């Protein structure tokens, strides 16, 4: 079930360089939304909506965190508290949640970090949240992750804060210790490819959230194709409807 309407932005915060957090009052969307889904936002003056992952699911509100990547997201970032935002939401196939899992690892790379937060809220102290950023000034959401009770591990490419290196290093260490029931990840494709390989090697269930240029957002136009394998057959799945979350073993990188 999804809806399209204009919803009130109840709070707007700049949480990083060119990164904004909106809290949006949208009771029917919030009730239907699950972690891993996205919202499709209209940018005034643009033909295509912009898909943005859900970073928080409240009783009556959703939180989204997005980065200005181009003119469309810059237009969305001009909206202010009290303004209406045109959303088609909630869309897509989210993460598989399992209340019986004892230990999960959540991995976010850069602006792929926000969709990990609802998972941290769900798994709480059973989660280890690994976040990777370019440098200290790009770091977002670490306090939010700590509040969920999840253990947090921070990495930066240049070592300006946290561990100097990629998110895959702490993942390898955790995998070597054993006891991980699932890995969930979102971020750049090379990062996801490496995570998928580590999980496969260690026999760990792994789901990844993908991104692709998109038009309709609901599976009608077939714009956001993604090469996958299902039942031993290669086929083009669509990130908006079959994803954005896929079992990592199905994705052909």
């Amino acid at each position: 079930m999804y809806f399209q309407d204009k919803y009130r932005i109840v709070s707007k915060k700049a949480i990083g360089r060119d990164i904004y957090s909106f809290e949006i009052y949208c009771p029917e969307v919030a009730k239907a939304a699950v972690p891993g889904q996205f919202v499709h936002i209209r940018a005034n003056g643009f033909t295509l909506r912009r898909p943005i992952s859900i970073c928080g699911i409240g009783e009556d509100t959703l939180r989204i965190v997005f980065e200005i990547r181009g003119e469309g997201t810059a237009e969305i970032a001009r909206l202010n508290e009290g303004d209406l935002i045109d959303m088609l939401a909630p869309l897509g196939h989210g993460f598989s949640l399992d209340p019986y899992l004892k230990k999960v690892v959540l991995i976010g790379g850069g602006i792929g970090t926000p969709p990990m937060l609802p998972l941290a809220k769900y798994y709480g102290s059973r989660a280890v949240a690994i976040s990777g950023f370019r440098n200290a000034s790009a770091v977002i959401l670490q306090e939010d992750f700590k509040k969920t009770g999840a253990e947090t591990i921070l990495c930066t490419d240049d070592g300006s804060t946290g561990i100097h290196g990629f998110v895959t290093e702490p993942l390898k260490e955790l995998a070597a210790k054993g006891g991980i029931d699932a890995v969930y990840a979102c971020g750049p494709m090379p990062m996801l490819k490496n995570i998928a390989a580590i999980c496969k090697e260690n026999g760990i269930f792994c789901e990844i959230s993908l991104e692709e240029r998109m038009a309709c957002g609901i599976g009608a136009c077939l714009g956001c194709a993604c090469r996958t394998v299902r039942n031993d057959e290669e086929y083009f799945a669509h990130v908006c409807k079959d994803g954005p979350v896929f079992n990592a073993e199905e994705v052909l990188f």
Partner: protein
Amino acid sequence: MADLSVKVCGVDFKNPIIPASGVFGYGREYEKLFPLNKLGGIATKGTTLHLRTGNLAPRIAETPAGMLNSVGLQNPGIDHFIETELPYLLTKDVAVLANIAGSTPEECAQVAEKLEATDVHMIELNISCPNVKQGGAAFGTSCEMAAEVTRQVRKVTTKPLVVKLSPNVTSIADIAKSVEAAGADAVSLINTLLGMRIDINTGRPILRNNVGGMSGPAVFPIAVRMVWQVANAVKIPVIGMGGVSSGRDAIELMMAGASAVQVGAAIFTDPYAPVRIVEEMNEFLDSKGIASVCDIIGTVKPW
């Protein structure tokens, strides 16, 4: 309330608005937002003889007041369409235009032949897809090829046959006359205009296919001009499309000569666009005291 119904090639449409092929799939996704019977018709996703996987991603790019696509006719094949999608659509009280395509005139005819035993209302023959290497646009850009594929499909179908024309030609009116002479019952236009965008940071085209079909409000004036030229060149009905995003746009295209109007990229901006456009057309007609939408078809008074 104005009378919005139109008749095209003997097929009744309760209003002139039809989501264009490719933007609407087979209707299931949009039915979660509004009932399909609010539409005049539905042009289904272009269907070929066998399953096609389409092009590699990215398939979509934004352009000023529009977009590019290079989906490449991804579809499950005509048998799946006839077994699964068509029976469902035929229960929806809406005219169904089965959009078909193929790599050769023979393949197009084979697809049309399979539809002959169904209750589909119309066949829309796509001779203008810019995103597949063989067929598609190749048929649509020469009068001889356009006529040949039309003739072959005409031979095997008694359904009303609409031929969808490419704007990527020197004279679309000449192509329209050729397909009319070859037996087309109507023409629909315009398909997308071939375009390209380059990511200047990487030097790579944004589309993996390098080029793709452009649509959206930016192409609307071209659609108006081409519909007008074609409507003046042929006696068969014209179904207009290209950048329509409001009731006023649809009225304008009908004044240029369109008997019905397809809506494409606008649905990506506003998923309710086809339904809103019907309401806006009604408001316009009422405000002008025009009793029937048919009364505006081709009424432009050129200087």
